[in-house]
């Protein structure tokens, strides 16, 4: 599966929950949302194979 965040792309193998995938790429589950096929998905969704998950930062600063 492919995880995309801003201009970075990671390839992960096997099956995992969205939450674990976010941690594996070094991001914080509280700080991002996951989108699969244009739809928002929750942390407990299992992703695998050809899935491409786009992560969106939820943190705004200033």
């Amino acid at each position, binding site marked *: 599966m492919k995880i995309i965040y801003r201009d970075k792309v990671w390839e992960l193998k096997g099956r995992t929950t969205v939450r674990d995938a976010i941690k594996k790429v070094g991001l914080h589950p509280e700080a991002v949302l996951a989108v699969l096929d244009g739809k*928002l998905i929750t942390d407990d969704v299992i992703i695998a194979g050809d899935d491409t998950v786009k992560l*969106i930062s*939820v943190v*705004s600063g200033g």
Partner: protein
Amino acid sequence: MRQHRLALCQDHFLEWVPQQVQRAIEKFHMFGPGERVLVAVSGGKDSLGLWDILLRLGYPAEGLYIHLGIPDGDYSEVSQERVGRFAADRGAPFRVVNVAAEYGMTIPEVSRRKRGRSTCGTCGLVKRHIMNQVACEGGYAAIATGHNVDDEAAVLFQNALHWATGYLARQAPVLPASHPRLARKVKPLIRLYEREMAAYALVRGIDYIYEECPYSRRATTLFYKDLLNQLEERSPGAKQQFYLSFLQARQQGRLLPAEVSEVEMGECTRCGQPTTAPELCAFCRLWELESAD
């Protein structure tokens, strides 16, 4: 939503979020039904989400976009376009104040000229002044901003680290109009996490600006938010509890005196807005505007 031990489908989530906002409006007596509210909108998820929610709840909410003149990737231009499209889609009134057109310089330009003042500090000062001016002149019941739990918890954390008692005494969901020329300020999103607001905006199909303001990327607030998110990961609900317990402890006088003595405020000799300075307010000094006398 681990902090609430709650999982909702999209339809119920879209009902739950406005309910949280309505609860905050009522609990803290922010404004009443039918009262005109000025929503300060940046084009981001929180402010556009807030505007959308207030409209859905039936409040006559109007938008104010302050064009700061941030040039990086046409940031201010793109943000204004998003706000304009949002307003047009909903038939909601909004107005734009362009800082460079009004005062001759953009925020980055004026802050470069004023050494020792950060860009974010300058920006905050200018936005507060303009928001107050527009709200007072337009007769709005309140200015509503999109501050959420994460924003408030990060500020609280920063203030507590420095034991900044003056700021701690005044950090509140409602800042009353303590002067005839000072508009009431309210934060209707203080029951919602940043993550919930981003989810709300995505599910509602709100076309918000994802990119962060280029000047805020190194903001210390982001560092504190990261620390608080680590805490949240270990202990779901920690951010909300930190903030809401603070409000409760202060209200009960367990932290600071429950009644804070008001700072004596005069009026700026040029613009007339309230100030603690003897003549010109910080805003007029920033632009080196002459006194009206």
